[in-house]
């Protein structure tokens, strides 16, 4: 058994596709109609055969209160790993991405959190090398 997909609830799939590909740099993997919505998945350029990210519509009535609750407490919906957090922060901030937490140390990792414009906070994480 393998983990092949993870999902993020987005308020608008087209807007999310643009943000996650244009700003974050992920690559479209699958885009097929699924009723009124799309089965829309992305992969990382660094891992084209890796775990897919599903941009899932947030239309179910349970989802919006769930997303609101997480954002209210500043809790990221998911987390993406980078090798150089500060470089990635500079790159994203310069193309207009809004950070709610600037890069900070949190124990063995370094983290930052940004707004994905689709109703979620997203954490970036860098595993610090052992000194």
């Amino acid at each position, binding site marked *: 058994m393998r983990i092949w997909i993870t999902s993020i609830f987005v308020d608008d799939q087209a807007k999310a596709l643009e943000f996650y590909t244009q700003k974050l740099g992920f690559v479209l993997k699958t885009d097929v109609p699924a009723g009124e919505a799309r089965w829309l998945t992305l992969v990382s350029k660094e891992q084209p055969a890796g775990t897919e990210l599903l941009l899932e519509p947030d239309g179910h009535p349970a989802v919006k209160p769930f997303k*609101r609750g997480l*954002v*209210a*407490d*500043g*809790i*990221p919906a998911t987390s993406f790993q980078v090798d150089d957090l500060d470089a990635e922060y500079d790159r994203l901030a310069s193309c207009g991405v809004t950070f*709610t*937490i600037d890069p*900070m*140390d*949190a*124990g063995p990792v370094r*983290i930052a*959190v940004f*707004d994905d414009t689709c109703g979620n*906070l997203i954490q970036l994480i860098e595993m610090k090398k052992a000194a």
Partner: protein
Amino acid sequence: MQDDQTDLIFKALAHPERRRILTSLRQRPGQSLFEICAASMSETGHGLSRQTISQHLDALERAGLLEILWKGRTKTHAARLAPLQAVTAITKKICDEEGA
């Protein structure tokens, strides 16, 4: 200041994690629950559960030691130190009488 308010402040201060949170919020106002948890992990080397931190924040808020500020859709916290000055006056009075 009312006695029960004074009690709440001393109770709020009677825990190392709450004192740490208050100091952290003083240094960096405007932290969300998530950020306070991350800072706790960073400063103490061991994380506490969100629920535990949340309960500490409730105790601080009941004592009037927190200011809540909404940044967009995110609830953030800052330290409110005015009530501490009132209890400082109490401890000072005790000290003065002892020295008299």
